[in-house]
């Protein structure tokens, strides 16, 4: 089970997204403000979508999402597999199909042991119709921490 902290992050960001959109279907990417998001910005990444998803561009990546031992990738297709960022951007196709926020949890098998994560994909649109950006939010913790707590 994913810890309550990851759950809170997902619900906080979903509430932020809901407040931004109001009665519209989606907020615009320009409305995303890292000052409003505050501490949680380090778990966020903003992606400009391309019709060919692996070619989608990473506009910003929070410190806690950036791969530790690799240069910051420019496109989704360049993200090192097995990282939290790679897991965070998976299932974008499902989110685009349903056109609503999608929250999923999972487990990464890292060299230092299993790592549990939870993420949420929040759709954004400049024209209110086509989803052209996505705010990706994810965090997690080693399974050992969960077992010990």
């Amino acid at each position, binding site marked *: 089970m994913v810890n309550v902290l990851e*759950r809170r992050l*997902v*619900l906080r960001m*979903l509430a932020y997204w*809901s407040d931004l959109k109001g009665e519209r279907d989606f907020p615009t990417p320009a409305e995303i403000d890292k000052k409003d998001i505050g501490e949680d910005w380090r778990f966020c990444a903003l992606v400009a979508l391309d019709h060919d998803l692996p070619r989608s561009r990473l506009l910003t990546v929070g410190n806690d999402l950036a791969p530790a031992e690799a240069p910051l990738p420019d496109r989704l297709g360049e993200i090192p597999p097995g990282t939290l960022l790679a897991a965070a951007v998976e299932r974008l196709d499902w989110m685009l199909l349903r056109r609503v926020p*999608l*929250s*999923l949890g999972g487990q990464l098998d890292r060299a230092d042991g299993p790592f549990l994560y*939870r993420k949420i994909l929040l759709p954004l649109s400049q024209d209110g119709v086509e989803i052209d950006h996505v705010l990706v939010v994810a965090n997690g913790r080693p399974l050992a921490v969960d077992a010990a707590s």
Partner: protein
Amino acid sequence: MRAYEIQIYSNGQWQIQAIFDDQELALLEARRIRASRPSKAVRVVEEEFDPAYHETKSRVVFRSTPVDEHNAEAMERTIDLRRELAARQTQKAAASERSVPPPPVPARSGPSLVTLLILFIGIVGGGLAVLAWLASLRG
């Protein structure tokens, strides 16, 4: 795989607001939406894909509408009213128990007080008459 869709009833149809793979999270979010938008009906639908039959089974795991809340409040009021009525009936029964007349005392066996008085007067009167007769014999 199971997914939980949060849906809001709007413009005559249920519209998906978000999808979770965690029921607890979906319920938390549904309750938050319900609290922030009290006029809207909210439900959580569990969707489970059965790969054996290539079909998706759906069931509602949470629903909250303004009507549901109204009904719950009305039910609460009815229960309170019934409790109050039952308490009043109990009090009334206890009060009526206290006002019931005492059971009649069973009649004693033997002569009554009047009979004894008449007998006493008769004996005294008879005695006096005898004394008067004896006094007349001496004189």
